[in-house]
């Protein structure tokens, strides 16, 4: 049988950044291989323009053209991508992406700029249960980004500074406004930045640990989304789980931030094959 490689693109439109990947599959939509990734911060630019730039960039990295892509799949705010073929919801995409990065994962913590959620999945990445943080932004990446800006600390230094903390100062885990007020008070009291940041990581982590506990999550838990690469946050999650004697083990991956985009690209390949089969079946039926 003639075997043809299938290429798909996954675009994760977040509120803060666009994550785009291109993947390669065999003719059955299996054995996915990541060819290229691109992360583009929106930074008050026109989102649609950033999406186009990111897509072009990732195609050129993979040495492909638009005509080579069999299925463009989106997740997040997918309606911003006019040229999409299909859209998959963030839970569906993140769970698939996380299992691609680590097949042993059975729960996921996805911390985006505006929302955080916990998912429990099976070995096929089917979402079995989920919980989301409620309205308040104090459990989100955007909050942490705001605080790092107030403290005058580059975002990439936040994790290391938090790890150096010896006496973390706790902040409100209920309300972003109260938490920001807490931080202002701490700064005026001369609390070291590391202790403030560790306190924030613990406060955010506690909310997420509660979500995982309510889902009875156990085993490998992957952290995805923008905070996955923040060492301080991951260390705080480990510390909290240990204190709470939870039977979970947190893991991340250097590509964790692309979990949504990877997941949606994989589902795109799956749908491409399924639609192709349906089309063949339908023409066979028509042909008698």
């Amino acid at each position, binding site marked *: 049988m003639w075997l043809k490689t299938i290429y798909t693109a996954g675009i994760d439109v977040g509120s803060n950044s666009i994550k785009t990947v291109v993947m390669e599959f065999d003719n059955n939509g299996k054995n996915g291989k990541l060819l290229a990734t691109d992360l583009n911060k929106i930074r008050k630019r026109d989102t649609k323009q950033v999406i186009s730039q990111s897509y072009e960039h990732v195609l050129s990295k993979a040495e492909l053209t638009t005509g080579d892509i069999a*299925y463009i799949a989106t997740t997040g705010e*997918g*309606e911003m991508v*006019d*040229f*999409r*073929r*299909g*859209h*998959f*919801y963030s*839970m*569906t995409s993140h769970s698939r992406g996380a299992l691609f990065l680590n097949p042993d994962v059975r729960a996921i913590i996805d911390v985006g700029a505006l929302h955080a959620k916990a998912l429990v999945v099976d070995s*096929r990445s*089917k*979402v079995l249960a989920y919980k989301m943080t409620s309205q308040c932004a104090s459990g989100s990446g955007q909050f942490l980004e705001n605080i790092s800006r107030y403290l005058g600390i580059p975002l990439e230094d936040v994790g290391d500074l938090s790890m150096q903390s010896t006496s973390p100062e706790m902040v409100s885990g209920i309300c972003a406004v109260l938490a920001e007020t807490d931080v202002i008070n701490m700064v005026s009291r001369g609390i070291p930045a590391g202790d403030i940041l560790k306190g924030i990581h613990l406060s955010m982590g506690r909310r997420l640990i509660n979500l995982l506990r309510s889902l009875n999550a156990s085993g490998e838990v992957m952290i995805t989304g923008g905070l996955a690469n923040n060492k301080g946050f991951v260390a705080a999650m480990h510390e909290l789980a240990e204190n709470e004697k939870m039977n979970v083990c947190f893991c991340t991956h250097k590509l964790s931030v692309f979990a949504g985009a990877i997941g949606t690209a994989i*589902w795109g390949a*799956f*749908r491409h094959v399924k*639609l192709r089969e349906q089309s063949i079946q339908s023409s066979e039926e028509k042909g008698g």
Partner: protein
Amino acid sequence: MSVKQIIKKCEQLYNDIDLFYVQEWKEKHKSRAIGFMPVYVPRELIHAAGMLPVGIMGAGDLLEIIKGDAYFQSYICHIPRSTIELGISNRLDCLDGMLFPAICDVIRNLSGMFKLMFKDMYVKYIDFPQNFLKTLGGNFYQHELRTMSDDFSQINNVDVNRDDLNRSIKLYNENRAVIKELYDLRSQNPHLVPGSELYLLMRASNVLEITEYTALLREYISETVCEKRPQRDNIRVVVTGVFCEQPPLALIRALENSGCFIVDDDWMLGARFILGDVALSNDPINALADAYLNHTVCTASKYDQDGNKGAFLIEQVKKAKAEGVIFAAPSFCDPALLERPMQQKALNRENIPYTSFKYSENTGQFQVIKEQTGTFADSIKLWGDS
């Protein structure tokens, strides 16, 4: 007109809660206009008397309710509040009458309020037959129709004869045929007729004179088949429960953006209530009554003599080759919400997946609904066979 221009015109009519179009029509034709609430009224009778039938579907999310809330308890749906608000803010002054078809107790009470509050207006509560025997329900309904026809003749100082009524019936038959053509086109090529566009086109039926409306639909059909629109990998769904209080336009867009092709629905149901043609005969009143008794859709607000709840919905799903059903009902809508468990039971028997939510005509936040319907779409696309 291009598709864009047609939809823009429909959107203007949709936003026209002051009924400027109706006022202009009355001025131009030196005639009168009769308003009606959802779901179904025999518009042919109004048209035959030379008047303009005007659908009043509440005010959606276009009007802030200031006084309307004072008339209803908090556990009552939204459409009567906004309809009262339209009335007391003088936006319905251009209407010479209002018809309140039997839908539920709330609409019946609303008709009583209109009678008390707007004394210069002709107000009629239309009782539909609950018995579908020609000699019982049929005779009763014919009497209702004759009374209304006589009332309309009197209001507009005209003599409506058999030919007038048959002419109107013919125009509405043509209109229903074009609507069916439009729905068939959408079912076959959902990407060519987005749900939001179809909804706006259907909303135009509330005000446009029937010949103008039919011509507009024909123009849309001929234009949209030439449009180049992206093919999406969406699931095909039937949306049901939206027959009275209409969903906000943004909700329909949100459903589509969440990965659904709406391939059948029950919004603006009055325009599709009669299935097929009403016979042109020597007794057009009898023909209208016969059409109601024997050739109408099944919906929660219509008495179901067979008690086979859900059978019509299943037929809709199969005919439209839908992969699932979205139950969208207005909050506190007794007919839709009471019927829902029986319909869901019928779907369970057929293994047809569904999801359910509630809305209000002025709902402004759709994130949760989008998550829900989007995840529903994913579950069908990815796990449909497992």
